[in-house]
């Protein structure tokens, strides 16, 4: 098995674990961590898969740097929202008390 393929497959497995975590776990911080795992898996695939053009390729590494900045911003926003939500309700899960607030695709299935 070639190295780029190994990286890509590892990334795919991590993506799967992250997705399962996002759907299956209830605690909001865990959901956020699962999203971070998915993000890292994506970066791994982005850098790993592009190696077959004569050695390491600098472009995806630059992209991943940008991607990390974006994911830090998103994580920070998520943490702020979760903290404020916890302060207001004392809850760490998304369960809706109002039935019309809509079904959530990530909550009840797990």
């Amino acid at each position, binding site marked *: 098995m070639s190295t780029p393929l190994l990286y*890509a497959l590892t990334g795919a497995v991590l993506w799967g674990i992250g997705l399962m975590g996002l759907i299956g776990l209830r605690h909001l911080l865990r959901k956020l961590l699962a999203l971070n795992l998915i993000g890292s898996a994506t970066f791994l695939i982005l850098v790993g898969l592009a190696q077959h053009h004569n050695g390491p390729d600098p472009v995806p590494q630059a992209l991943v740097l940008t991607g990390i900045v974006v994911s830090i911003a998103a994580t920070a*926003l998520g943490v702020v929202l979760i903290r404020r939500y916890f302060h207001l309700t004392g809850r760490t899960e998304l369960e809706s008390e109002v039935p019309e*607030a809509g079904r959530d695709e990530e909550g009840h299935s797990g």
Partner: protein
Amino acid sequence: MSNWLMAGLLFTPLALATVSLLLGFRQGRALSWLGMLLQLLVSVGLWWLVRHEGGFYYTLAGWDAPLGIELRVDGLVVTFLLLTTLVASGCGIHAGFYLEPDRPWQRYFWPLYWFLWAGLNTVWMGGDLFNLYVGLELITLSAVGLVALGGQAEALRAALRYLLAALLGSLAYLLGVALVYGQFGTLSLADVAGQVRVSEHALLMRPALVLMLVGLALKTALFPLHGWLPPAHGIAKSPVSALLSALVVKASFYIAARVWLEAGVAVASQWMAQLLGVLGAVAIIWGSWLALCQPRLKQVVAYSSVAQIGYLFLLFPLTFGVEASVSLHAQQGITLQVISHALAKAAMFLAAGNLILAVGSNRVEALAGVSHFLPFSLFSFGLAGVSLMGLPPSGGFAAKWMLLQASMASGQWWWIMVLAGGGLLSAAYVFRIYKASFLERDEQDHFYHPDRRLEVAAMLLALASLGVGVSGSQVLSVMAMPFEEVQ
């Protein structure tokens, strides 16, 4: 000249966002009036430039792809920039008078608003896949912030759900981009499109396309991935809901459509196109039905967005494996649908916000008797409803008529039933609101009168959505402006 226009479109919204972060709500508002005027001048200037000299590629700061950011300016981009200016200014003016300036958190509205605008402009002009991702994330983060702004637990819950869904969507899209880069070693959409057509074994392109489309469908709230949209759009402040429904969901759809039309059609299969169309059709019927059943006014409008987004996904079956003329017809119909829905839905949310302000409750039954007190806002709501139903002479009619013709010309008659059924159901939910507001009830005859300027903003957008129908061919002529294929 194009340097100045690009700076105006990309740099000033970011600069305004940063500066208004330091100001209070009132100073931020004054600054934002100037910013809106500037955006109007710049986007009209760009229209003038493209009309006379044709579209062009623009490399930011002179750095070429792959390291530099490539921007593409053509007729369609100009159409969307003008639309953004119109709708975002309308919502911004409404917000300026709707939000209470004395609440401390309201000063964060303007920074988020301008970051959102910067993200939208980036997405419309973005020519490479990764830059589109960054623009999309900028939009997502500021939109989530706007939903949560000053909200209570319910708003935070909706914002969190929105954040989780939208981030998952972006990451699925980014994974697709990673596969495309691994396959072709380029991020420029034009290069990818060129290579897809010549290469025989683009093994990763099909999974990449599926991932990108699924991720973007989640962000556009295509059935059955729409669960996050009604709570978020229903709970946000009315001008924010208007911005989200009118422009934010269109950004991810726009990327999906560009990827599909430029590179996707070559590797997709008939079942993928039909599946997307069927999901769109289910969204139209199911979303309209749920809109009819909602007890709260803004939820009605939010579910109506789910339904109207369904129409956009008819693009995929109507452009796959059909003649070029039919495909062009479908693309024009979808563009008109995007424009008229953006204007009509913004008008509808703003009018709904005024009605809620007047009766002091967001329940549909509470509207009884409001027709005497707020006829102007109710009329805007109705005009927007006419466009959503697809009655002539509105923009919605022109769009649905073109989709109808494209369905018949391509022999896909089954979409015609969906278009007709969706129109009837939207008529039902608009008339339900009208029925509620014309009922007389004795106990309540005390209504709060909102600021006149709030009603004018809603009215102007509703009139614009009618105007799109009357001047459909002029609107489409902007989209068809020439593009020079030189780099």
